[in-house]
């Protein structure tokens, strides 16, 4: 019993980039609807999913994040009309490249989530946390210097 207590349970570190107009509002709705998801998810507000520079994602991994999720408005609903379309292309290529260099699939994710989809937001985050939990710690993209 005491062994179990001492052994620290692995909890992933997850960075979520949420666009201000849909997904961040969706996260707020999840909050006001009390739809819980793990505290491992930390949200960074950005104006648009198109604002998410691939460097931010790699930066998060470098600094020790185990998963990065980008949430934006549904295609067609971007507050700025086209931002998420560009994001979709960027992320498709970036994710494919990460897979190519041998990073486990599923550490990155893009989800379209509207301001009305609090339930979807919570569900997505629960799923994503579960996925990352199953993948375990990110050892392939992290910078060792951040660990100490």
């Amino acid at each position, binding site marked *: 019993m005491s062994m179990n207590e001492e052994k620290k349970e692995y909890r992933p*570190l997850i*960075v979520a980039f949420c666009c*201000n*107009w*849909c997904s*961040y*509002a969706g*996260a*707020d*709705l*999840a*909050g*006001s609807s*009390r*739809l*819980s*998801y793990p*505290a491992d998810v*930390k*949200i*960074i*507000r*950005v*104006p*648009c999913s*198109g*604002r*998410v*520079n*691939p*460097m*931010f994602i790699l*930066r*998060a991994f470098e*600094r*020790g*994040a185990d998963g990065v999720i980008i949430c934006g*408005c549904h295609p*067609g*609903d*971007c*507050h*700025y*009309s*086209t*931002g998420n379309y*560009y*994001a979709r292309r*960027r992320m498709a290529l970036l994710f494919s490249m990460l897979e190519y260099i041998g990073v486990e699939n599923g550490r990155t994710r893009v989800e379209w989530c*509207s*301001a*009305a*989809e609090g339930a979807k937001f*919570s569900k997505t985050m629960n799923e994503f946390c579960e996925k990352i939990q199953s993948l375990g710690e990110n050892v392939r993209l992290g910078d060792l210097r*951040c660990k100490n």
Partner: protein
Amino acid sequence: MQKIGVFVCHCGTNIAATVDVKKVVELVRYEPGVVFADDYMYMCSEAGQEKIIEAIKEYGLTGLVICSCSPRMHEKTFRACAEKAGLNPYMVEVANIREQCSWIHKDREEATKKAVILARAAIAKVNLNTPLKEGESPVTKRALVIGGGIAGIQTALDIADAGYQVDIVEKEPSIGGRMSQFDKTFPTLDCASCILTPKMVEVNQHPNITLYTYSEVEKVSGYVGNFDVDIRKKARSVDFDKCTGCGECSTKCPLGKIGKIPSEFDRGLKNRPAIYMPFAQAVPAVPVIDRENCTYFKTGKCGVCAKICPSKAVDYEQKDEIVTVKYGAIVVATGFDIINLDKFGEYAYNESPDVITSIELERLMNAAGPTGGHLERMSDHKQPKDIVFIQCVGSRCDSEEKGKPYCSKVCCMYTAKHAMLIKDHWPDTNITVFYIDVRTPGKNFDEFYRRAVEQYHVNYIKGQVGKVKPQPDGSLMVQAADLLDGKQINMKADMVVLAAAVEPNPGVRKIATMLTASIDNNNFLTEAHAKLRPVESPTAGIFLSGMAQGPKDIPETVSQAGAAAVKVIGLLAKDKLKTNPCTAQCDTLLCNGCSTCANVCPYGAITYDDVQVMDHGLRETRRVAQVNLALCQGCGACTSACPSGAMDLQGFSNRQITTEVDAICR
């Protein structure tokens, strides 16, 4: 180095119940830049704000972090508060420890830990914040209303009466919308056209209103106060100025007699000629030629209408015309239609002409309708004796491909209305209404419904109909269960009326995309705030009126139309608007002038100029990007497209975001 004050809000127990607020205060105190940290019961209250102002003055704070509810809720409040104390409002960051922390986590220790991390990220960001100043942009004092139904008409009239120019764009040949198809209105049983037609005429004659009927919005650019809209005026094939509206052409059109073109206005219960006005009271009273069906346009022969027109108004050569107009505000009043019933095979709508929708019933009962107001079965033109109404057809339906999850809100009331109107005219008729729930919230609504039961003896049965089976003898068999009596019912009917679910006009999706106005899963336009800003879209300068925003009846539509008008008037009354200072900025020393950013800018806000730069002692003329701050909306698309990092977004800079990432990953 900033001097940062951190203020942690309890939000009563909303935050404090799950987050150890004192501990957060204690732990953030040591973060770089923090010189003061405190907590309070309600940070957004007068007293809470006073506390902030005092601390700013006492500690000479240069940056604030408020750990509280979502920035979407109170960021503005705290920015205003900072400004009151002489601090630039953009030196404030909000850590969302309510919606994104205390409300979703149960474990106190875990939630407290997360709150500290969120606060840390905000502190790290504020360390890099710079004071920003809002810009100004002018306001074009003209409004556009998209949709000429009762919602659009009312909004336009209210704005026009306040002295501003309004244009209405209506895609049909006449304004009037759905309401013009109705016979009577609940709960007063006024005649719909008696109350609508005067308003349509008023619109037509109002000096401040310009009508674009048979027209569509083609393209929208610009931003609040300065929209540029391309309107396509579809070719009417009839000269507006020459036509007197005598209607001779419609009467003589050979296709009117053959009768192959179903009338849209009469929901296909009647046919119309190729040159037509949708209905007698149409505004403007100028016919259009339906080029798809017109013999002249199909074969080059006929030309009867041109020959007989006494004022020579028919013009086959007319072309679509695109006009570009500037507007300060846009109101979306695109209305609704009913859903397609193909998926509800069990109700035999496609099988039997005697199964009709409620709108069709409205036309059948209307004195100007296809039967001249005489209620008859479309199959044998006999007057129906037993009529069944089925409620909630496609409403409150969980299956996405079949129906809609929401309550259509108007069906209960109009069904009661229909039942009473029929009983009034033909008291022998037996009317049965199958309902799931009867919903009558509204002034005089329940009284209205009770009247149908008590006075008119309309038979209300709780229980959804399972199947409608057309019988060989031409009648309809209705299979249902009376849930309250616990009996299954097999009932013969002569006519079945389906209360089909309403849905937003299918064209609204395209319009919303053009306007960058957000839309929900059901294609209803999203309001900026469900309670506090119900007639505004989150996109500045876009307002909502009528069914486009959600199901509602006529009185509600008219009040919302008025509310939208007031919001528009409020906007147009301003000479200048403050613009968002969180705009993109180009570092001319880093810019390559490659145009990548301009290619992704949705607002055309980026142009290129040759400018003289001094790069570490090297003087050069370079082609570099320039951001038009009035056009830039701060989306940041350019920043992630820029390979060199020359483009950056104020308020959400590369450094600020990476520093947040770092803080979270610490």
